[in-house]
């Protein structure tokens, strides 16, 4: 107990933040939200008491910042252990080959691939939302309606940021906030707008929304090209095999004008078709690895830009 007793709610929250320093930012945001909700409710329930008096009693009822921080870390560790998939029982470490192809049994590789496809839609939506909102805010700022419009726009962008966080946690497994950042004490329009303008997270959130368009396009293109090319290469031997058996199929396969015709003839043999099949399988497997890596990387970007550090 080296720290002095906090004299105000803000001091209490600062101490709690300090006690949780270095922990997952998402966990910190949740803990701060819960504490602020409790402290403000306690303050509202006893209007006769001053904030400092109330906070002196808090160590006995809600708990000192250190105790509360410890409770969150304990519970978080226990829940994570309980929810984690049980470790594989095999005592030997899997071979490199099994690790390479094991990506197909990783749920997060599949969900990350889905995220890459979905990112085009969400990216277009976020980009449109951010650009339209900013442009209209600037345009309407000369009218009285500009103030509530800007507040509504930033409020909505915080909700979207939470939704995007939940989506990312569901699809990539990265821990994201389960509560929005606490709005703090209710204030007038002017004070709220100034606070929003000075909050770095407002701008990083909007930056994330704008960035999602190019990222979403890139993710989508890589995922679609990878899946179709890999599937086409894998199916090519089957297609040619059925044609060889006399099934009436149009002449399919890959046709490149720029590829040397001699190479195409060489590939149009049982050995060549087997090679095409192997390349297709390798390509799809690499795509799954790439999807998982993109999922991790994107979750990092999202955490940096959407969650206060």
């Amino acid at each position, binding site marked *: 107990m080296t720290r002095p007793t906090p004299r105000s709610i803000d001091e209490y929250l600062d101490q709690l933040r300090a006690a949780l320093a270095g922990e997952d930012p998402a966990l910190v945001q*949740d*803990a701060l939200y*819960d*504490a*602020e*909700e*409790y402290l*403000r*409710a*306690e303050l*509202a*329930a006893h209007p006769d008491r001053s904030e400092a008096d109330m906070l002196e009693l808090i160590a*006995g*009822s*809600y*708990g000192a910042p250190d*105790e*509360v921080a410890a*409770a*969150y870390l*304990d*519970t*978080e560790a*226990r*829940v994570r252990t*309980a*929810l984690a998939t049980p470790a594989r029982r095999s005592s030997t470490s899997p071979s490199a080959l099994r690790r390479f192809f094991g990506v197909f049994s990783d749920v997060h590789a599949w969900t990350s691939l889905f995220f890459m496809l979905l990112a085009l839609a969400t990216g277009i939506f976020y980009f449109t939302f951010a650009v339209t909102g900013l442009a209209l805010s600037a345009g309407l700022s000369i009218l009285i309606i500009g103030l509530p419009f800007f507040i509504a726009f930033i409020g909505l962008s915080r909700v979207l940021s939470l939704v995007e966080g939940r989506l990312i946690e569901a699809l990539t497994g990265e821990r994201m906030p*389960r*509560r929005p950042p*606490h*709005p*703090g004490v*209710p204030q007038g329009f002017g004070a709220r707008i100034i606070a929003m303008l000075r909050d770095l997270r407002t701008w990083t959130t909007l930056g994330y929304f704008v960035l999602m368009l190019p990222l979403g396009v890139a993710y989508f293109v890589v995922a679609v090209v990878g899946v179709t090319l890999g599937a086409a290469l894998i199916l090519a031997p089957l297609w040619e095999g059925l044609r060889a058996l006399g099934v009436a199929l149009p002449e399919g396969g890959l046709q490149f004008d720029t590829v040397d015709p001699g190479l195409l003839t060489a590939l149009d043999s049982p050995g060549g078709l087997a090679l095409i099949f192997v390349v297709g399988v390798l390509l799809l497997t690499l795509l799954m690895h790439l999807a998982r890596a993109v999922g991790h990387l994107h979750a990092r970007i999202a955490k940096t830009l959407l969650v206060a550090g």
Partner: protein
Amino acid sequence: MDDSHARKFQKELNAGLVSLVLLSVLAASPADLYGYEIAKRLQKANDGDPLFKEGTIYPVLRALSAAGLLDSHVVPSVAGPPRRYYRITDTGRATLADWLGAWRNTRDFVNRCTETGSP
């Protein structure tokens, strides 16, 4: 030194029991409750020396909610910040029934073991 042993023992006892108490409070309440209300109800029931700090129930509520035993929704409040209300789910009620069975068995067993010798 004795005090720290006692506190550690209390903390280990609380680890599972806080979840049981929270589920019971929510199962008994006809209306949805928010964190502060739950904390105050427990404080009333826990007159005198508190067994646990109110701040420790929030992460447990969150964990129960993540496990699907509780449902929650946020309601903006007229005075002060928005409140997160909790309600017990059907899974939560089934779990509570299981836990209560386990708790009664444990309680009877502990009583039998610790009270042997007394008439």
